[in-house]
């Protein structure tokens, strides 16, 4: 018998976003925080903090393929995504998950802006956000650490015109 899919209204054409649950902690620890700085407490924080909602990205069939999180502050939010496999940036899953989360967040939260940071050499991620409707706003120089050195990040955003 097929296991029923958890209920969520964040459903796109290719992906569905279900709230994280305690059983997801091993996956979350493995993938790390989608919002940059690693904090081992983040799964617990994301599970209960309404300003840091996090979701497991599933295929429509129910396979867990990634984690997506928002951090809301004032009228803005920052979005981050981690995938089990980087091919998800390319196969349409990323575009669909980003579109679904962005539309849901603008529908449900009092925010007018969602932004994200992508490593400036991560063309697949930048392209996925752009195809999901995000606009490139600029490049923040030496704004994150990778392999012990500061790297540039591209800042992209979606804004709500309402």
């Amino acid at each position, binding site marked *: 018998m097929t296991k029923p899919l958890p209920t969520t209204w964040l459903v796109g054409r290719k992906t569905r976003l279900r709230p994280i649950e305690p059983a997801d902690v091993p996956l979350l620890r493995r993938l790390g925080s989608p919002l940059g700085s690693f904090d081992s407490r983040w799964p617990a924080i994301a599970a209960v903090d309404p300003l840091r909602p996090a979701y497991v990205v599933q295929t429509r069939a129910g396979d867990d393929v990634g984690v997506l999180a928002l951090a809301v502050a004032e009228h803005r939010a920052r979005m981050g995504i981690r995938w089990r496999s980087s091919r998800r940036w390319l196969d349409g899953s990323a575009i669909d998950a980003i579109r679904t989360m962005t539309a849901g967040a603008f529908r449900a939260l009092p925010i007018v*802006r969602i932004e994200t940071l992508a490593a400036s050499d991560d063309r697949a991620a930048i392209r996925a956000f752009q195809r999901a409707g995000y606009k490139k706003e*600029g490049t923040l120089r030496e704004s994150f650490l990778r392999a012990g050195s*500061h790297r540039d990040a591209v800042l992209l955003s979606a*804004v709500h015109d309402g």
Partner: protein
Amino acid sequence: MARAIRGGPLGSRLVPASSRHVAALRDGFNSGAVAATTIWRLPRSTVAFASGKEAVRRYAIEVEGRLVGVCGLWAGRYAGLELTIAIFDPRLRNLGIGTFAVSALCRIAFADIKSHRVELGVYPQNAGAIRAYAKCGFRREALLRRYMYHNGRWRDVLWMSLLRRDWKIASPM
């Protein structure tokens, strides 16, 4: 321990902000003189000014012992440290006091705190401030859309940064 920094135009100096500055800070912000260029819009109480987010460093800008503005370094929104500055007395703007304060804060950020980056946000219409920041070596990085709400509408913010390596070239230690 932070110390006073002297040598600014018109005898201006930066003094570590303390409880003795709270009333003057409250009056400066509550006058509305910087409401158009800072996030502080509505008048607030002395208690509100004394509490709130901790700055990494915060200085009162004084001229002849009178507080005329405030500046500071905060945890960066994106990376490194974020620089903020407000000069309350309009007659004291465009006289180099802001440039002096920004240069001094950058020296503190890079030489004392060893930050690799200082960043700041400014309204794109604030040409005087953008010129002053550029003079200190800041470069434009991004235009943040609908970032602030002011005068009944959402406004964009220009994000600028100065990197330690650029500062070292411009201001060798």
